[in-house]
């Protein structure tokens, strides 16, 4: 893992810990903005985001996790705090292109975080085979530092 990736992973763990300290991530629309990125909404070839993968992992495993797998199910999760549900699965789109997708239902938590009303600043992390595909997600992701990403994800208020 390179420095930026490592810093981003640590920073996102801090963001999830902050969300959990406030109840759960579902109260933060910008959590879903990052965790539910799906390239298919952009009409491009396959594009993934390492930060999305990390956010999903943090939401379902380890000390920051609030989403629990429903008994007897392989992909349906429910937030143990607010009850928001969603599915997570992993699809292969090319010879070494695995993308994990989190589809969340509308949040059941009382909104605490700021609306997802701007491009999400990220310090890299997109992967795909063609630059033009990644460029087409520029209405969703902007360029930013790790700190700018953290500040954006943790901004409070509607």
């Amino acid at each position, binding site marked *: 893992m390179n420095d930026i990736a490592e810093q981003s992973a640590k920073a996102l763990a801090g963001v999830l810990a902050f969300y959990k300290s406030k109840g759960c991530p579902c109260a933060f629309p910008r959590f879903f903005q990052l965790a539910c990125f799906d390239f298919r909404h952009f009409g491009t070839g396959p594009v993934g985001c390492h930060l999305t993968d990390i956010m999903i992992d943090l939401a379902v495993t380890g000390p920051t996790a609030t989403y629990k797998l429903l008994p007897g199910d392989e992909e349906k999760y429910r937030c143990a705090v607010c009850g928001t549900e969603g599915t997570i699965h992993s699809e*292969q789109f090319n010879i070494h292109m695995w993308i994990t997708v989190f589809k969340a239902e509308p949040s059941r938590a009382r909104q605490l975080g700021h609306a997802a009303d701007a491009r999400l600043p990220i310090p890299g992390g997109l992967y795909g085979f063609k630059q033009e595909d990644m460029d087409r997600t520029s209405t969703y992701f902007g360029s930013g530092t790790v700190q700018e990403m953290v500040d954006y994800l943790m901004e409070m208020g509607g």
Partner: protein
Amino acid sequence: MSHAKQDNFGLAFARRIADGLKEHPEWIALAKGNIERWSQQNADAPSLLACYREWQAILELPVEDVVAVLLDPTDRGQRIRQNSPFAGVLPPAEVWRMKREVHETPAT
């Protein structure tokens, strides 16, 4: 996911494919179809085309030999597993479960 966990996932996925290939020889045709489609989509990407050609040759082998490649413990086997053409063979939920299990297993 760390490189070690990616390798572990690649091995778990390859083992699952190897276990199922004899009962599902149609997976070979599905993989060939994937490679044909990807080759057209990425005709301007020489490195990908090289991976596709390597797998095209493997998929012409008898099923037992394809299984042997999937389970090859050498560095070559590890590299080839990262480039699996068996997309769409397993349900996305099963793939996620395998990823989750690898992720939750402490690295050795």
